[in-house]
């Protein structure tokens, strides 16, 4: 069985198991929607008061927020295995079993679970995206669809990379540390506003170190016609570069893995 088909099997199993508790699935999804839509309410309130932010209108920032939210919701849904890696695999010693199977650890962890409840976050991101597109009057040419689709792909790669680095830390700390939350949830928080808002050093951090600006700010600016330079549309490629580096770090961590022995 090739890797892709095996992954398909993993995901089918995961979906079937989550469907065993439909009520829990629905309430948790609604909860995720309610908890995450608050951020959008906050943005709305500030724009209702101040009207503009560094030349950006509400609709434009809503589109920015939508792109970041949708990317993160998808990444978060796909990488559950890395998210709980410390608790579920290192602490219990279960990672030993992952390693003896004749398949890559990354594939097995990606197949650990496809979290359906993330549809709550996805839905509010899509909602913000729709509001933003409507208010800012984006012309939906195939080109702008392509730019934003690439942005979301880059965003999934970036956020997955962050979660992978977090998982790698667990090789040394055993339990998952929540430090990465600063970069994931904090990254969404930072990425939902235009970069112009931030101090220069922080802006550079969001472009060159953890390139959240590259997967949201640059492509959205292109779609909104705020910049005319096409190369910015390719900025989300840095999300894939980040993922590549994260995979390197992960491999390094796996080589240094010592079992907890339980």
């Amino acid at each position, binding site marked *: 069985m090739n890797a892709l088909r095996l992954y398909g099997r993993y995901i089918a199993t995961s979906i079937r198991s989550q469907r065993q508790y439909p009520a*829990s699935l629905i*309430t*948790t999804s*609604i*909860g995720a929607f*309610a*908890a995450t*839509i*608050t*951020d959008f*309410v*906050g943005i709305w*309130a*500030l724009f*209702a*008061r*101040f*009207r*503009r*932010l*560094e030349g950006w209108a509400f609709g434009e920032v809503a589109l920015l927020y939508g792109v970041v939210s949708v990317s993160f919701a998808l990444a978060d849904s796909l990488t559950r295995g890395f998210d709980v890696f410390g608790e579920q695999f290192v602490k219990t010693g279960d990672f030993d079993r992952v390693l003896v199977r004749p398949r890559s650890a990354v594939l097995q962890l990606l197949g650990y679970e496809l979290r359906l409840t993330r549809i709550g976050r996805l839905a509010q991101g899509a909602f913000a995206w729709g509001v933003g597109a409507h208010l800012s009057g984006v012309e939906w040419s195939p080109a702008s669809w392509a730019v934003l689709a690439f942005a979301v792909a880059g965003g999934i790669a970036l956020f997955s990379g962050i979660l992978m680095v977090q998982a790698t830390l667990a090789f040394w*700390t*055993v*339990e998952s*540390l*929540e*430090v990465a*939350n*600063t970069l994931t*949830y*904090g990254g969404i*928080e*930072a990425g939902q*506003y235009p970069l*112009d*808002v*931030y*101090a220069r050093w*922080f802006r550079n951090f969001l472009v060159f170190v953890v390139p959240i600006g590259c997967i949201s700010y640059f492509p959205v600016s292109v779609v909104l016609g705020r910049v005319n330079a096409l190369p910015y549309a390719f900025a989300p490629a840095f999300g894939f570069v980040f993922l590549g580096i994260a995979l390197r770090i992960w491999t390094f961590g796996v080589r240094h893995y010592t079992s907890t022995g339980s």
Partner: protein
Amino acid sequence: MSGRGSHALTPYVAVVRARFGVLLQYRAAAIAGFVTQCWWGGIKVMVLTAFFAASAGAPMTLPQAIDYVWLGQALFTMLPWSGDPDVARMVRTGDVAYERLRPLDTYAFWYSRAVARRTANPALRALPMLLTAGVLLRVVGWSAYALRAPAGVAASLLFVASIALVIALSAAVSALIDALTVATLSDRGVTVLVSPLVIVLSGSLVPLPLFPDWLQPILRNQPFAGLMDTPFRIYTGNLAAGGAVFALARQAIWVVVLVLLGRVVMARVMSRLQTQGG
């Protein structure tokens, strides 16, 4: 002999070392939490600064809004966004029945536990955050972003009184969540409903005065404003002395209302308590 002795001690040494490691984990978690709070606060301060630069006429000044944000970061663990995890566990296992056997008033018992929880956590977390926002930012030259001292002596005293009412109010909401947890047999539903409300309506998300003017009458009079907005506006001087006393009274009224409501819910729930077993 000595060899055997050290052998016998080995497991205990191992336990101590393991336990020590676990405690270090907690410290690491606390530091991680602190870093997160700083990150969040920093972003909020920068965003608000940019918003204020664009237009005038907000019902609070930028320094007031910045103080509001840092206080919110320092005291966010006072917010009652979930009930008591132990109560939720007891409901799940059915142990909640034992709570009825204690020679105590269950509501008062759970309320007291909530008071402890809403005091201990912020006490540990607030100081580093206040020092960072108030002192460190000044030292490194970011005075514009720093937390300032309270607006005056009267403001300080009223602020302390208001924080005491925050604890009373927060515990009342927590105890109400606990009672509803027993009623619905799970903490899930209640938390899903209450926590976004608390985050938005307390001012933790965006300072309440910055919401649109037409919402202000509602925002000012709802109970969750007493969890953050009231003390913070007193601290920053956004609420003058007369308004502050009025706001304290409003906090106190909500404490009474929510305690009574909690007691009613608790009495009804406990009179036909359903215990999960096994």
